[in-house]
């Protein structure tokens, strides 16, 4: 059985996998990191999104073998060691951007990559386009869009002074 060595949330693991094992299965079943979810089987819903070397990937369409030698961050790895939440996690809570919570881990991981990759700014339209790979059935996206817009200045160190 082949094995992969990868770093997940800062910890290195070597895991035996089948050739067909998906990254999401490795995370959920071998490492019991069940925060990453499986919502579909056609790579449409984005509930499985994690960061691989800092970039969001759908872990349901990534073979575990492809993750060999990479550094993976999952929703469990976002908060600081002392429990301080990532600004995107905070924004989701503050703006009621989740209801059932099932799409939330993938949504948060996707949103962080979206904000990171747009240091120049992010319009509502860009946020909505940027979420094309994530499905949410509960919120109508309204509050997710608000949360991401609110997290952008915090993540880019440009926290707006309340002067509007």
């Amino acid at each position, binding site marked *: 059985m082949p094995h992969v060595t990868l770093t997940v949330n800062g910890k290195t693991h070597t895991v035996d996998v089948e050739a067909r094992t998906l990254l999401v299965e490795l995370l959920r079943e071998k490492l019991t990191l069940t925060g990453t979810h499986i919502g*579909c089987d056609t790579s449409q819903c984005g509930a499985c999104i994690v960061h691989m070397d800092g970039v969001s990937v759908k872990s349901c369409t990534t073979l575990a073998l492809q993750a060999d030698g990479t550094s993976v961050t999952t929703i469990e790895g976002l908060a600081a060691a002392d429990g301080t939440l990532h600004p995107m996690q905070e924004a989701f809570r503050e703006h009621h951007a989740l209801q059932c919570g099932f799409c939330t881990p993938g949504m948060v991981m996707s949103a962080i990559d979206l904000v990171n990759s747009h240091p120049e700014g992010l319009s509502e339209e860009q946020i909505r386009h940027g979420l094309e790979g994530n499905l949410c059935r509960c919120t109508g996206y309204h509050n997710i869009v608000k949360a991401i817009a609110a997290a952008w200045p915090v993540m880019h160190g440009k926290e707006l002074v309340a002067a509007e």
Partner: protein
Amino acid sequence: MNAIFQGIGASVRRKEDLRFISGRGHYTDDMNKPNQTHAVIKRSDRPHAKILGIDTAAAKAAPGVVAVFIASDLEKDALGGIPCGWQIHSKDGSPMAEPMHPILASGKVRHVGDPIAIVIAETREQAKDAAEKLVIEFEDLPAIATVRDAIRPGAPIVHDEVGSNTCFDWHIGDKDMVDAAFARAAHVVKLDLTNNRLVPNAMEPRCAIGDFDPMSDEYTLVTTSQNPHVIRLLMGAFVLHLPEHKLRVVAPDVGGGFGSKIYHYAEEAMVTWAAGKLKRPVKWTCDRTEAFMSDAHGRDHDSVATMALDAEGNFLALRVSTIANMGAYLSTFAPAVPTYLYATLLAGVYKTPAVYAEVHAVFTNTVPVDAYRGAGRPEATFLLERLMDVIAHDTGIDRVKLRQQNFIPADAFPYQTPVALQYDSGDYQTTQAKAMEHADWAGFPARKAAAAAKGKLRGIGMSTYVEACGIAPSKLVGQLGARAGLYEVANVRMHPTGSVTVFTGTHSHGQGHETTFAQLVHDQLGIPMNQIEIVHGDTDKIPFGMGTYGSRSLAVGGSAMVKAMDKIIEKGKKIAAHLMEAAVEDIEFGGGKFSVAGTDKVKTLGEIALTAYVPHNYPIETLEPGLDETAFYDPKNFTYPGGCHICEVEIDPDTGVTSVVGFTAVDDVGRVINPMIVEGQVQGGVAQGIGQALYEAAVYDSEGQLVSGSFMDYTMPRADNLPNILVGTETTLCTHNPLGVKGCGEVGAIGSPPAVINAVVDALSGYGVRHIDMPASPQKIWSIIHAGGHKMAAE
């Protein structure tokens, strides 16, 4: 220091969010039990076929396989079929046809997705591989998917023992009165319309883990359910014949339901039964593609609506004829949806004096159809609110004025409709006026002109609705055919040190009960939010409950909680009277404190709780120790949220693509506990309504194959398909529950679809369009614009 107000009316941030945003949610598929096996279900890829033989030998011999079960294995244990929870009687008094709904298909498959075999192996991959090795010999039969095909003479019959495809042929209302009104009508306006079939698609696929403990002879089912007690009752009593005290059903964090997780599904019975057979846990997790062909679908009506009006545009009578698709088998609440949750709402917000509706429910070779967010009320609202705009179109009466002149006036409540329901409160004029103000209805012509200058077609549409939720008074629904009571249960358990655990029979799968209910408890008992724990979803912990659907949790479950808290206060007063040497009648309670009227003597609820559990100085002769109270609450009536939704769209005539550019919802949901959560519920409901109106359709081909069977083919609304949704509330209180609450879970999905289609039709008014069925896809609209849309006007 001022405490932050967290009681009724505060947008408290949700208690449950921390675990969800940290990846610590606890969904069924996140759980694994020691020595667990994995089940995969072999499903029919045929819509309708005889099963001539199943060869399981190769599958049983495949690596890792523990067992393969087919219908004959279940029959040896005399297992029952999946029961239906509601019985409808036809016009002639005969009960509905209720054919056997087997756990595994026996002799015949009746829809694509019908389960045939369960394959259990050490790993899920091994079970999948082995399922491929099952050899099933079929004899294909002709199939039907649509209601029109189902009633065609000579149509293939889904259940041979029924003899036709009719499940029931039911009616409501005064036919003679309606006929008489039509005879004297100045105008008669008729509309044919369909309500498109939908797939609920909660983001968490269903999952079930069965377990059996040979030490105690107890079964446990962990399942993605909106109502674990109902599953225990149905599965225990009717399918597996297990007594309730030996069967525990747990519904942990559940990732959305929208109705689809109300029902008792065959897979729950399979894994529970198989766990007993194998003496090992059995876990099944649904794939999304599998969910498309096994989760109950929603809607699927084909209707004709006709309104009789006098010369001034006053409604005289409404006649409706609907054919409703039940699918291949009766799901748990299916017969109630197109009858008592639909036709009883056909008066809508209007004082139409006479209404008569006939509903013909039919079997087809499709996935069972049952309640989906709104359940019957969206179908009624779509019919009525499309009819309003068509009446305006045909008679030339302004669509806003037409509605206003026919509204039930605000001073007419309680209002008895001609179709059974009595609305307790509402103010449709005010919600309409507010919505028009928020949406700047008056400014629309300028926006239309600006859009036209850019080459876009802009339209605006309105829907004014009422719905019935807070389900439901047990006696009434019993008379109407429900086979269960629909009360709710709460247990309020004060702990000796002053914190409290509240057990509710409702279930939260996104609604935020852990917060809303905690606010309610905080408000009533004065206990700090962090000292309140709300527990749901476990039949071993909670006395009983009917679960969450029909926007019942706060109206019914919250009322039960209020009743239980009243008992806590009542008993607390007796303890406080003893401690403070006062008469019980002189004890007052407020802000978490018992006081003696007119004195400065005070005991906190915490002190009283401690005394109740450490009863050294206690009226032990007359009062039991402890402070733990349970209440059952059976509602006196449904609740009746109502409101007005306004949608504004822009259509690109070159592509036929519709953009929703504005959406305003002003809803009367009664008293609001947490405005943030209410807004979120409305926004989510509206998104599903826009999805139904513009994007979503479960499509079967003429041979019964499910064409839109994955997210590749079924259009789910995405972030860039939806606008910001402006939500307002306007409150009239429910008059018959202690909180004055009505319910907000479904209003978004009920009010919005006709507002969207009315806006689309308005945008296309230059093309002579009178009606468009949902979803108003770009292809449909492009065809109207580019291929002689005037044909559509001639209907």
